[in-house]
Structures are given as C-alpha cells and as structure tokens.
C-alpha cells in the first residue's frame, strides 16, 4: 500500500472516528426529517456532501503539505524513496479520506432514496475532488514562495479553491437549463461544467504531480506548463461569443474574436503565474550558474513560468493583428483600434509584472504579494473610479487598456510606465542579489 495513504488511514480513521461520523450524520438527517419531512432530504444530502468534501476537504488538503512543513516532517518525506505520484495520490486522497468516508454515508442515504438526483451527486463528487486537488496544488504553490503563516496560507489555499469551484457548482442552480456557448456550440451548462471540471481536475492532478517532482528534487522541465498555456488559449478561444458586445460591434468576430479571447485568457494566466512564481534571487543565481554550465537546456529551466504565458500572448496578439489586417478593409474600427489595444495590454502586463517584482524584492517587504494585490486593485479599480468621478473619463486609457483612442493616449503613457517599471525592477534585482559580506546570521 502507498505508505502515505496508509499513514493517513492510521491518523484520520481510527475506530472511534469511524463510529462517530455516521452517528453525527444520522442525527443531522433525523433533525432534517423532523424539521422538514422527507422533501428536504435531497437538499440536506447535497449540502452535507458539499460541506464535507468542499469546505472541510479543502481545508485538510491545503494542510496536507503545509502542516508537514510546520511540524518539520516534510524533509523526512522529501528524503524518502516515495515517488511524486505516490505523494500526489497519497496526499490528495489520504488527507481527505475522512471527508470521503462521511460523503460515502451520504451516498448510502442517497441509495436508500432520500437523496437528490444522480447527476447532482456526480457533480458534487467531481466538484469535491477538483476543490481538494486545487487546495493541495495552491498550498504547494504558496509553499514555493516560502512559509510565512500556516493558518493564513492554508486558509488562502482553501478559500481560492472554493472560490474557483463554486461557479461550477452553483451554475446549474442559478440558471437551470442554461446553455454555454463554446466554439459556436450550445452546450448544456450542466454537461459543460461537468466536462470542464473533469478536464481541469486532470490538469490540477498533473500540476500537483509536477510540483511534487520539484519538491522531491526530481528533474522537472517547464514543458507541461507550456502545453497548459496552449490548452488555456484553446479553451478560452471557445468563449468568443462572451466577448463584450462592443468588440462585435467593432467588427471583431469569427477567428479574430476567438484569437482575442485566447489572448485575454493567456494574459490572465500570465498574471496568475507571476504571483505563484518563486522570486528568490539565490534560486536565480543557481539557475544562471546551471545555464552557464549546461547551455540552452539550463536556459529553459531558468525562464520564469509567466514568461511562457506572456510569450504565447505576444504571438496570439500578433496573429490577431495580422488576421484583422487581412480580413477587414482599411479604415474599419477593428483594424485601427485592435493593434493599439493589443500593444497596450502587453505593455500593461509588463508594467504590472515589473511592479509585482519590485514590491516582492523590496528589502523590507514582508507581504510583497499582498502589496501587489493591493496595487492591482488600486490601479485597475480605485483609480479609474476616482478619475471617472472627477469627470476625466477621457484619461481612462492611461489606466486601462482601451479599445479605441489615439496612440498618444492608448500606448505612449503605458509605454513610459512600463519602461520606468523595468528600470526600477532591474535596480531592485541587483540590490536583492547582493550578499552582505560578513557577520551572517542564519537559521
């Protein structure tokens, strides 16, 4: 048996807990029956499964590795002979085994005819698996940036996992019978959510496996990330029908619309990758030495993950512009505005990535990433609202990528901002990489 799964079995399901959970669940169902009769059982069953596997399960999954780090048992595991795959499924299913045990009892209730529909049950199970996998993946990503506060990081991983999964779970309740337009197809929201969850669950488990490879010091190339970026571009491109009506009105539809949707998807992924990328200057120094010794092979590993997403976004942006040049007559809004818009988005991205690095590498930065989130909220939400309030809507392109407007307003201001940010980040990088020569105090 997988040693990690076995350990969780010993820890999580001792005999007294095996008995107590069904007893508690029985009381819950009894109370529901007394309070609302048989009709409320489907709701209570679904709610209980949701609470167990999505709320509690994500907590346990997020704590699976972070807890080991805090208890100083993680290095023992890193030095063991367990493979990344052993660790992936051992941690994912082992840490949450008790919640699935509870969910199993709910399924028994379902089988006895007191639950809801089989579709809803499957949807919840899939959502639970996806949420738990996301929580574990996010906790591993947060750990790569250093452990600051266990409770805070576990909560952050749990919160993000629940927030990401929630739309899939609630979509059907909010809009029963809704359809999702994807690549011109009208797909039932239930089916689309289920299929999307299955695909993203596979990607999430793959990401956990990759992160475990890194943690266990196996060679880990960046190519799976490149493939994921391509997948996200493809997935996002299918949502071209959801692009704002203003774009369609401007003549951006068909292939151009899909490419633009893919472009936006990869830009969002670039931002996400920037946040989770470790920014330790010493790591980069080691990679630089490796790259010098190993040449191009080392250089691929040297490249930060966000750069791949950004690279794909640049290519997609270029293709959008070329496509519009070839497919639309001169003088149309799309042909005039889209190239400037694409360039502006890329420049805003460069500026923001630089700003994130500037804030994280600040010598007194304790919560650099949190500061970066505040910065993004300020520049993209607070400042535009203030500008609009002051009646200066015409200046909004300085703060937001704008579709339409002259070069000197849409591109030049953000170009200046990006150049300044790049200069500052290079200075900050040099300062952060400098080692104080003597009187070191280490942990």
């Amino acid at each position, binding site marked *: 048996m997988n040693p990690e799964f076995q350990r969780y079995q*010993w820890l999580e399901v001792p005999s007294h807990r095996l008995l107590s959970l069904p007893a508690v669940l029985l009381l819950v169902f009894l109370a529901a029956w007394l309070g609302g009769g048989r009709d409320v059982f489907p709701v209570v069953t679904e709610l209980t499964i949701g609470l167990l596997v999505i709320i509690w399960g994500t907590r346990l999954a997020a704590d699976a590795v972070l807890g080991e780090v805090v208890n100083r048992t993680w290095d023992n595991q890193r030095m*063991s*002979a367990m493979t990344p795959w052993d660790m992936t499924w051992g941690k994912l299913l082992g840490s949450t085994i008790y919640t699935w045990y509870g969910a199993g009892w709910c399924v028994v209730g379902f089988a006895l005819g007191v639950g809801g529909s089989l579709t809803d049950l499957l949807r919840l199970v899939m959502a639970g698996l996806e949420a738990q996998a996301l929580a574990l993946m996010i906790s591993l990503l947060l750990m790569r940036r250093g452990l600051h506060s266990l409770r805070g990081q576990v909560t952050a991983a749990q919160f993000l996992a629940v927030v990401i999964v929630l739309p899939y779970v609630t979509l059907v309740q909010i809009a029963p019978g809704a359809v999702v337009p994807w690549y011109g197809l009208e797909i039932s929201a239930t089916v689309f959510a289920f299929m999307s969850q299955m695909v993203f669950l596979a990607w999430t488990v793959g990401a956990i496996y990759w992160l475990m490879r890194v943690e266990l010091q196996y060679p880990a190339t960046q190519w799976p990330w490149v493939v994921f970026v391509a997948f996200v571009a493809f997935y996002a491109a299918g949502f071209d029908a959801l692009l704002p009506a203003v774009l369609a009105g401007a003549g951006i539809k068909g292939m151009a619309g899909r490419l633009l949707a893919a472009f936006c998807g990869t830009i969002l992924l670039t931002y996400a990758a920037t946040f989770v990328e470790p920014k330790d200057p010493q790591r980069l120094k080691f990679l630089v030495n490796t790259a010098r010794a190993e040449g191009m092979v080392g250089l691929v590993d040297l490249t930060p993950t966000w750069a791949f997403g950004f690279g794909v976004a640049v290519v997609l942006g270029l293709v959008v512009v070329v496509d519009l040049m070839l497919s639309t007559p001169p003088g149309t809004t799309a042909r005039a505005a889209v190239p400037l818009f694409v360039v502006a988005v890329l420049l805003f991205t460069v500026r923001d990535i630089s700003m994130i690095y500037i804030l994280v590498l600040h010598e007194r930065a304790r919560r650099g990433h949190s500061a970066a989130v505040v910065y993004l909220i300020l520049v993209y939400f607070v400042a535009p609202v203030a500008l609009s309030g002051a009646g200066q809507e015409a200046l909004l392109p300085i703060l937001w990528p704008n579709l339409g407007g002259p070069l000197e307003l849409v591109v030049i201001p953000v170009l200046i901002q990006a150049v300044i940010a790049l200069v500052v980040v290079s200075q900050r990088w040099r300062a952060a990489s400098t080692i104080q020569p*003597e009187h070191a*105090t280490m942990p």
Partner: protein
Amino acid sequence: MIVVRNLTFDYPTKRALRSVSLEIHAGTITGLAGPNGAGKTTLLRCLAGLETPVTGSILIDRVNVIATPRLSHRRVGLLQDYIGLYNELTCRQTLRHAAAAHGIAEGELGRRVTDTAARLGLVDRLDEKVGTLSRGLRQRLAIAQAMIHRPRVLLLDEPAAGLDPDARTALSELLRHLGTEGLTVIVSSHILAELEDYTSHLMILRNGRIVEHCPTRAPAGRPRRLKIMLAQPASGSLRGMLSSDPTVSAVDIDGVGTTARFDYAGDVAAQSQLLRSMVQAGLAVASLQEEPRSMQVVYSEKMRGAKR
C-alpha cells in the same frame, strides 16, 4: 566517504557557506562545532541534499549530491534540530511508515522495524504513542527513523539539545555504539565536552568557513601531550631530565614544581623507559598519563584565531 569542494550557499541577503571544502573518511564520527549562525545546519542540509548551493560540489559515497539528490538520500540519514514526528502514531507505526517510505519491501517491514528498534533500545516502546514519549525517547525514535533504511552516513543536528543529563549520557553511548558499527556520522553540537566522548574528529565552522578540521586524538607518529605528577616538588631535576630527552618538547612545569606537561614524540616503550629513569633518579612520580587536548581548548584557540 564525503568530499565537498568549494561549497557556497546564500540566503536571500546573507552568505551562509563560503567556499567550504572538506573530506570525511568512512567510519569516522565528526563533531561539528561553531557559534550560532556559523552555517552548521546549512552545511548538514546541503550534505543531505535538501538545499541547493549556489556553487560547489558534494560527493557522498561517490554519489553527486547536487546532481542526483534522490540517489544520495538512500545513503544518508538526517536528524534535524527539531524532532519531526507524528504524535498520534505508535512507535511501530512511525518506523513502519518510515521503512515503507524508504522502499523497504512489505515482507521485510516487520523485521526491519524490530531490528532498528533493538539497535536503538526501543523494542519495549514499540506500541506506545509517540506523543507520550519523553524527549530523550523521541530523540531515539527520530534517530531510528533516520537510519531505518541503513544509510552509510548519518547527519545529526544538535541531537543533545533539550535532553536531560541521563538522556544525554544515553545518547552519547548510543552514538559511540553506532561508531563501532562502521557508520560515518557528523554530529553538530554546542556541547563540546559531550562531543569529546564519542567523536574521532572535530570540525569548527565560523562565518561559513571551516577554521579547523582535525582528529580529536593525536594520530600515531605525532607528539602526544603527557602530564606527570610528583608527590613532592622537584622542579629543577624534573626540568633537567625532560630537557635532556630529545623526544620531549614544549615543557610546562607549574609553579609548585609537582606537575609538568610536555609533548612527547616517543612510543609507549620509550615512555615506559622515561618513567623508569625518573623513578631511578629519585623523583616521587605519582602518575604519568596522556592528556588529550580538550576540544574546548582547540575550539577557543581557533575562535580567537578566527577573530584575529
């Protein structure tokens, strides 16, 4: 067994190890000493393949630790300064999990657990929960966990920290015993007197540099430090006798004239002859014995030297 060349390790704003080079032979027990922040823990973690240095190379049992850390983990056991154990498991479950995690076959797990527990004196504790053990026993269990896969090198970071005197004595005996089994051991500690009990070598780190790496006892062929004690003072004749012997140097006689310390290059037969000559010369010799150079003395000298 362990060869390190030009190892440099940086924390974000501090250099922890500065071009460290060392060689440690198989079957030795090396005491690793140095002030807080000298880089002891970092060096041990680098040797264990848990940290990646900026530059340098580490070979353990001819395995390149930096290039193939996974391979090196099979040869190395690490006990960290903080004991990481699962309190809710029993000792048997803890060791069984550690053994299985190190890839030991299912059929052999039980025997390996019992064997390791026997080596560490834990057999009668196997069914107790880890959370109920004393700190000394937890330390033993953690060492058992670190060596369940029979590593060739054992790295112990401050194993005596927080232990009571009885537990420290027991730990010293245990480490001495492990030394006789041929394991190569590196032990970091602040308590030099304890290291003296069981180490064969001393390594001193300061500001990320090795300032001393030497055997704790003088190797064959090198002068030994001897101490002679007389029942009655005889400073003049004692100095005269010692000075006339060509194998004697660095003579230091106390003010009373009853105790002398000197470096002696002769073998034990010559030492016996020297003793006989002293007795025949009428000196009231009460004792003649080798005086190991205390680690504390070596440490203090090196620390002073490093500060200069």
